[in-house]
């Protein structure tokens, strides 16, 4: 071909040549199909699907939909590029939700039977963060082969070249049943700062990810890796070693933090972080946290998620375990999540901080969380907690735990919540005061860096059952229009227009596999005269220069209850339900 012909040919080709990862494209968005029966050299069409999601992700361009057929995919999916705008996302979607499973494990055969009920296998490479599953059940790791002989469990011995595993499978034969070793560090992740990804209906399980820290790496089975504008919807994350869904940006320690260079001062533009929607996911049996992240929750919505059995085997012994664990979560909205069975001595239902100015936790149900239901740490506020149902343990008074633990967290506004056996602690950080930043409203622009104290909390229109607020008077704290029953006692320093009921309320939670109901009889409850619970009523928080407001800056008025009933009446019931439930009927909470 002569030069002119080559040039013409090239010119003809250019409009149709699109490189993956470029933000502009000339081709219409396409669907890319993936099937366990596919082939990565295929076209990615419905009739010639690809074999791996990894291949599909590499081929996808902004606007494309990756449609994944039913099956198990043993791979780590890495987005190297994302979408380019809200209406030009890359979408990874299960054709049949929950029928697509990305597993961080490999099936392991060739087990050799040894004495004392033990089976042995050899891995080519040693790995610290591995997990062993027998028929889908995680086996606990123990110290020695001697320990293994006693129960279903496993142990290992590794050198630089290989790893020997001994396991006790009981009566099962590991070569005949499904025996899996989790080795991969993530299920779905991305390179740093890949934006506009949507993940729908995918299950991720058996990921052997490392533990996360707000001050370090934050690996999740699904991991936004610092990207922004991810939508993670209808996904299921189970049996992962540490974090289920990470929306964190890798953090670091601030050795020389001071007022001129405070912690987290390296993030200044709110538009460059977070903005995720993490909705309708089910995260269970993850070892450290359900949803975790530094910065990623900023301006994000975390809604309708079921998070349960976190740190269920208590292997994690660090201090950052929770159903939802977020830091630098400015303007985060945590709404209508069910969080239950969070275990461990430092595990909380929701753990926020440092910094969650402007955050709102609304209509969440948190129960069976061993160290506390909410832990609020280092923040200047204001933050809003409304219409939540927090159910503490009956014996919480007997050990060092609180329903709501506040440590150097100012200006927490609690409105219309139901606190059942849920006490409060409210402290400053011991020792030298540590400075905490606050920001101009709805931004990450530092306004001030001063020590956060334990002041300026509000409790209005809450229902306390069994336990009251129970803290001493602190500067700026206010409480009123609450209802106390079943032995809960109003505070002496406020609560002048609150009601203490002599009649008890019966209350019970009915857990089901994917939900929870409230069974209660509140017919004995007295209605209270409660003023309009408006942002103006809560006050102007002068340090942060804002009212209680939503991320768009609009003031928030609390005039809806848990069930979204609206009221304009000043005579109503304290707590998250405006109307009486006389017949001991069930209220579906989740």
């Amino acid at each position: 071909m002569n030069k002119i012909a080559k040039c013409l040919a090239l010119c003809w080709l250019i409009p149709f040549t699109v490189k993956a990862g470029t933000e502009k494209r000339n081709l219409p968005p396409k669907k890319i199909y993936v099937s366990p029966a596919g082939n990565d050299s295929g076209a990615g069409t419905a009739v010639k699907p690809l074999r791996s999601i990894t291949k599909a992700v590499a081929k996808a361009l902004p606007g494309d939909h990756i449609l994944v057929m039913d099956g198990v995919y043993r791979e780590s999916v890495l987005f190297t590029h994302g979408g380019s705008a809200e209406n030009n996302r890359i979408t990874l979607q299960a054709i049949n939700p929950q029928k697509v499973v990305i597993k961080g494990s490999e099936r392991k055969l060739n087990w050799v039977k040894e004495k004392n009920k033990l089976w042995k296998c050899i891995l080519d490479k040693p790995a610290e963060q591995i997990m062993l599953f027998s028929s889908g059940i995680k086996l606990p790791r123990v110290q020695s082969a001697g320990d293994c002989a006693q129960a279903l469990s496993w142990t290992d011995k590794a050198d630089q070249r290989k790893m020997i595993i001994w396991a006790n499978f009981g009566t099962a034969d590991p070569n005949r049943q499904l025996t899996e070793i989790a080795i991969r560090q993530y299920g779905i992740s991305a390179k740093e700062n890949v934006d506009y990804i949507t993940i729908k209906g995918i299950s991720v399980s058996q990921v052997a990810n490392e533990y996360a820290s707000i001050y370090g790496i934050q690996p999740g089975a699904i991991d936004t890796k610092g990207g922004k504008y991810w939508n993670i919807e209808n996904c299921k994350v189970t049996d992962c070693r540490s974090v289920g869904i990470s929306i964190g940006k890798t953090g670091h320690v601030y050795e020389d933090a001071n007022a001129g260079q405070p912690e987290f001062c390296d993030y200044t533009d709110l538009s460059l972080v977070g903005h995720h929607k993490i909705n309708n996911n089910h995260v269970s049996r993850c070892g450290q946290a359900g949803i975790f992240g530094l910065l990623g929750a900023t301006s994000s919505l975390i809604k309708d998620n079921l998070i349960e059995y976190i740190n269920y085997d208590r292997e994690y012994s660090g201090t950052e375990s929770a159903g939802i664990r977020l830091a630098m979560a400015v303007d985060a909205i945590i709404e209508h999540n069910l969080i239950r069975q969070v275990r461990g001595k430092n595990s909380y239902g929701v753990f926020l901080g440092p910094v969650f100015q402007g955050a709102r936790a609304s209509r969440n149900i948190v129960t069976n969380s061993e160290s506390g239901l909410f832990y609020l740490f280092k923040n200047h506020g204001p933050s809003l907690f409304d219409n939540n149902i927090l159910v503490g343990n009956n014996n919480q008074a007997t050990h060092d735990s609180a329903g709501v633990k506040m440590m150097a967290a100012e200006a927490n506004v609690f409105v219309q919540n139901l606190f059942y056996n849920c006490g409060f602690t409210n402290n400053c950080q011991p020792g030298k005061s540590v400075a905490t930043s606050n920001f101009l409203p709805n931004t990450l622009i530092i306004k001030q860096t001063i020590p956060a104290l334990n002041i300026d909390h509000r409790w209005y229109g809450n229902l306390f059952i069994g336990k009251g607020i129970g803290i001493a008077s602190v500067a700026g704290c206010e409480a009123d229009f609450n209802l106390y029953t079943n032995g809960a006692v109003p505070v002496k320093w406020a609560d002048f227009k609150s009601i203490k009921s002599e009649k008890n309320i019966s209350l019970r939670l009915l857990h089901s596999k994917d939900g929870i109901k409230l069974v209660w009889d509140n017919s004995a409850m007295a209605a209270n005269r409660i003023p309009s619970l408006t942002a103006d009523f809560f006050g102007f928080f002068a340090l942060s220069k804002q009212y209680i407001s939503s991320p768009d800056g609009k003031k928030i008025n609390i005039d809806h209850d848990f069930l979204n009933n609206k009221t304009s009446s000043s005579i109503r019931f304290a707590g998250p339900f405006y109307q009486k439930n006389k017949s001991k009927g069930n209220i579906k909470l989740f």
Partner: protein
Amino acid sequence: MMAIVSLQQANGQVLKLDSPNQYHSAPFTHPGLLHSSNDLLRMKEMVAQGKEPWKSAFQKFSEHPCSSASWQPNAVVHVERSLLIGAGKNIGNLEKDVCAAYQNAIMWAITGNEAHAITAVKIINAWSEKFKVFDGTDVELGAGLNVFKMASAAELMRATYPKWQQTEIERCKKMFSTTFYPPIQYFALWAHGNWDLACMKGMMAIAIFNDDHAMFDRAVDFFYKGPGNGSLLHYVINEEGQIQESGRDQPHCMLGIGHLAEMCEMGWNQGMDMYSFTGNRLLKGFEYTAKYNLGEEVTFQPYNDISGRFPADHIATNGRGKLRSIFEQVYNHYAFRVKGIPPGAYRYTKQAAEKLRPEGPGFNADNAGFGTLFFSLEK
């Protein structure tokens, strides 16, 4: 160790202000910030007559670079006062220019040399034309301190220099209300008292210049009963005169009581006596601070401040002895302007004034400074 006590019911960060009293329904007197017409006349005459201490004080004042008629303004669109490393924009420009505008206005009033009037107006006009954005972590301080001096200059020029165009005056008013006022409008409840005070005195100055009585009431009400550390009784915390920042360092104490005194002087020029509130509590603060900084010992009550953020269990030696130019104003007020105050009541304030005489500039744009020239009264 004595227990740290909260001397007041601590307030949080939530700003709840009662409706302020009406302190000044009559039209404001102009010029009526730190200097009345009589004050300007006195300075002019004393300097012209070569009387001391005005003569020496004027010598010092006129030699200061900011008093030069050749000063060129350096106005910008955006000023940021910030504690963050690497942040902060143009705050030095503003601080120097407001001092230059103010000092040139005084120079004009004393010497009658129109070159100073032209320079003062040129500086104000340059900023009112350009300046739009004021922010940063410490914007309350930046806005409060600088608008006080800029308004002081503007107040003098409007009253004494008819060539300053009405349209320019209106533009200046707008700059005060739209660029300087927003950062100071909510005070600074979370901070040491000098922050509130910077807001208060800046607000009071804007109010008088802009003839905004509601704003004036807001500032003065905070002086009397504001919920922050800056209200008089929260800043001079007891009858001994201990300052809310005495446990922090001495320069901030002098800064803060200087602000209080400047508010009192503005009030005085509007026909109000804020000096005498609660048995001359202001003077007690001056006496306590002067005494300690002159080398004598004072009693210290361990205490926690009104915000609860700054507990102190001993007096701070940091900056002790470095007297600031704030004492002449208060000394002259109590020694010569009001009657019946026994000399023992202002003994240390007098000593501090004498030690500094003639007073030099205020630190940067912190206080007015040059008190010997501005406030010395005939005995």
